[in-house]
């Protein structure tokens, strides 16, 4: 038990621009919300340590860094994802319709070993707004048709259900990681940063 190695789980958040991907992760990790919309600049990924069923895991949540605006997310972004979060705006039906193509895009680019059972979690954001245009029924029907994807209606602004959604995301990612662990055929990675840190500590870094 004690020898269980630290688990790092990669979660990526997809969805049309403006649906609140950055806000959701920022609310979850930093408990912050900024009401102004600004195409994502500077958001890279955020990490958070969480306890999932008595196991400490590090979630690494990757933002699109604005590259979704012109469909220029490269394949490298998708590699090694353990869970994919699909986000739409409950007040904008087009963003809900896009989920289908985001899901397809993920499956093509990330090429998970078992595409039919890869964990996706669907989030409808902005339920704090009045002008709702995607009904829960419609969203649930789509999720049910895709092998019963978990579905949450959230508000990043008011922090509604954000934590609940991410608990499900973390659990799904951990399950996925455990499944792929069986296929591990890759030798240890080299940690360039560790070596880097060792050098800076010894005081001979370039200043």
């Amino acid at each position, binding site marked *: 038990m004690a020898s269980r190695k630290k688990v790092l789980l990669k979660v990526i958040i997809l969805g049309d*621009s403006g649906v609140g991907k*950055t806000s959701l992760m*920022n609310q979850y*990790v*930093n*408990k*912050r919300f*900024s*009401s*102004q919309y*600004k*195409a*994502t*600049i*500077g*958001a*890279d*990924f*955020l*990490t*958070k340590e969480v306890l999932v069923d008595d196991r400490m895991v590090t979630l690494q949540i990757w933002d699109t*860094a*604005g*590259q979704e*605006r*012109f*469909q*220029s997310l*490269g*394949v*490298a*972004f998708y*590699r090694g994802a353990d869970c994919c979060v699909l986000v739409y705006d409950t007040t904008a039906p087009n963003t809900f319709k896009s989920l289908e193509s985001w899901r397809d895009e993920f499956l*093509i680019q990330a*090429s*998970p*070993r078992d*595409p039919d059972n890869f964990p996706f979690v669907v989030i409808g954001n902005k339920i704090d707004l009045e002008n709702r245009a995607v009904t829960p029924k419609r969203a649930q029907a789509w999720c049910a048709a895709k092998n019963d994807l978990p579905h949450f209606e959230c508000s990043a602004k008011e922090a509604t259900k954000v934590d609940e959604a991410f608990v499900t995301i973390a659990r799904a990612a951990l399950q996925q990681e455990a499944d792929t662990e069986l296929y591990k*055929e*890759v*030798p*240890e*990675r*080299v940690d*360039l*940063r560790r*070596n*880097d840190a060792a050098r800076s500590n010894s005081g001979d870094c370039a200043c």
Partner: protein
Amino acid sequence: MDELPKKVDFVVCGTGLPCSIFAAACARIGKSVLQIDRNTFYGSEWSNFNMKEAKSWKASCESSKVISNLKFTPSECWDTFEMFLRTEQYRFNINVDNSPLFSTGKMTELLIQSKATRYLSFKNVASLKTVYEDEFMSVPASRADLFASKRVTVIEKRKMMNFLTKSLQEEPSEEISTFDQFLERFKLTEKLKSFVKSSIIFSNTEDLSLYDGLAKLKKFISSLGKYSAASAFLYASYGSGELAQAFARMCAVFGGITVLEYPLKEIFLEDDLVTSLSISVPESSTPHKVRCDHMIAEVNYLESYHNNTEEDFHQVIIILTDDDLKKIIKDEKLALAEDSGPEPDHCIITAIVDGHHIWGLALDSSSSTTPKGKSIVTLRCRHKPTLDKFSSKFATDSLWQMEFTNSKVHLNDLPANVQVSPTVQFDPDYDYAVSWAENLFKKLCPEEEWLPPMPEPGDIIFPTDEEGEKKPEDPKDAEESKDSTAKNTENSSQEESANAKET
């Protein structure tokens, strides 16, 4: 869809490695950058693709001046892909310019310095093998390999050890001008000389200067043992095509915009300066016009300036086989290897055949470029017939092959604010790409810092309307708060209240 900018500091045409490094460096310091690519994929001649994408790679080469004589065997190879499971097809990552990195090379140093390493993962290249007199053998470059090798005599071991430990301490003598003359002083046997040339300095040029030769030797020796006692090289998982995407990601994180499948349509000039560019927009008949201070472009975007193409710059062959590498590379079993568990199979392969230097990579699934049980061998040589002959020994169980010529293109005089990026070079690693980007950056953005460390992800403050132009947090501040986690730090909560706006 969002609007593309109408005016930027830099338009970068092409997403190949040199251009992507440059674009990231400019975005990093807050310059406005628009990077366009005529292809559907990142990386230009440094790209990687899976089997499904081979077709679009082929289409892109048809209008390329850099890559020519592209040939697939079998010619309609995508039809044969159906024999793989759907998920397996995506597990092939064919890297067009696959190269290992020296552990202390310029690229490795830059990745560490800029913290772009967060987007990549690396492995040590397990071994270095050379073909000498038609036999595979491990190059005894490290102390352990040297003692384990049965293919070199005791005297040779002593001489090689002497060379590896003493050569860099030698006082340069005035009578010596070439590296060959320098090698003579160590009284190496022909076999050892071949090892040094093919696999340590990666050059078989007869008149290689002493200066250049020693620089190559120094690079190898300083890299050996940095991350692994037995290897001087690192290998990026999924192949070196990932490097360009890591820099493109960094560019995006700092506000740079990249668009794929947007070909350059027209260049507008005024007094020998580019003032703006017209870019074709997919699924639209109206091109986008963008004004810029500088245009940085790959050769293929400067067609009207092409002069001539140098023939046969270097030939590349990529062979995908149905075999384990162990079956292809029949090397002696190293005595020590048995103690250290199963030996990974991926390796660097080198040879000198008929005076021509050949080098390449042989990769198995541990490289994340092939599914289990399949291998990819990439070889390159400046002489096509030699490469054709040599590569046949890897092709017995070939599923398919791809070969092409990488050429150098000479351009006529360019407008003063246009810069052209280098094409793929023959030698391993990407010193040339880093040097070019760094020199250009220092010329065009003097006084600015060259790819400083990215702040820790949790320290990046998201800009608000009031501070729309606010640059990402000063990296120096980020350094100071290095210990802070992504969670609320004092620093970020202060920033938060500063950024918060009552709604």
